């Protein structure tokens, strides 16, 4: 009797968990993001990473501005600000072109989030900081050179 009760409780608990997992799954599928894109983050070049992100080859655009220092003394902390004035910007990806793995971040924006991201990145050496913006299914890009005095990726 007791064992039976226990089993029933157990199975009830299990279905509860499954239902919760399904609900979580449903919520996730409504989201733009899938699992962490390990291939894009492991890509060794910017074009490879862009391809792995599932984006088309971007066109240069003057509507994207990148604010970053001309010379960064410490490559471990390089402030980068990307502003896209392209209407309907839904994605901003940031790359440091000469890092071992150039892709740094991939942002998806929705529900009123503006085409603006401010963050701090690591740079191994002097390189172009590139932003790739997605808007209306098209991709646009701009880049700015940052000279790095001390690299921020080594030990």
């Amino acid at each position, binding site marked *: 009797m007791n064992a039976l009760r226990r089993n029933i409780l157990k199975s009830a608990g299990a279905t509860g968990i499954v239902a919760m997992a399904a609900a979580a799954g449903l919520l996730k599928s409504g989201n*733009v993001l899938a699992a962490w894109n390990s291939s894009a983050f492991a890509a060794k070049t910017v074009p490879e990473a862009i391809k792995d992100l599932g984006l088309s080859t971007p066109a240069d655009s003057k509507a994207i501005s990148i604010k970053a220092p001309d010379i960064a003394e410490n490559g471990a902390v390089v402030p980068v600000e990307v502003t896209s004035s392209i209407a309907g910007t839904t994605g901003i990806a940031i790359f440091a072109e000469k890092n071992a793995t150039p892709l740094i971040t991939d942002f998806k924006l929705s529900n009123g989030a503006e085409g603006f991201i*401010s*963050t701090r990145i690591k740079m191994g050496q002097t390189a172009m900081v590139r932003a790739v913006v997605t808007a209306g299914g098209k991709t646009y890009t701009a880049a700015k050179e940052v000279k790095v005095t001390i690299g921020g990726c080594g030990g």
Partner: protein
Amino acid sequence: MAEPMKMRASVSGDVADIKVLMNHPMETGLRKDAKTGQLIPAHFINEVHATVNGKPVLDAQWGGGVSKNPYLGFKVKGAKAGDKVEVSWKDNKGESNKVDGVVA
């Protein structure tokens, strides 16, 4: 691990300016320990999500190229004072943290 995050959200016009500071070592997995010469295992935030009043506004995937103790600033149009903002992260070891606040 989960040290507190800091967030400030202020509104000017109809745009909320949200700034977040997270505490995290952000190890790329490529760095060597100076003493032992061994690689330090990768440990970095790889997912960041933000919501305003429960609606997702920002979903990000990060690599190890984001600086230690990451800073993130973003702007949300159509927000007003009193809106609830929540920002959460997850790292490659499954640790997570979140912070919530109100637009001021």
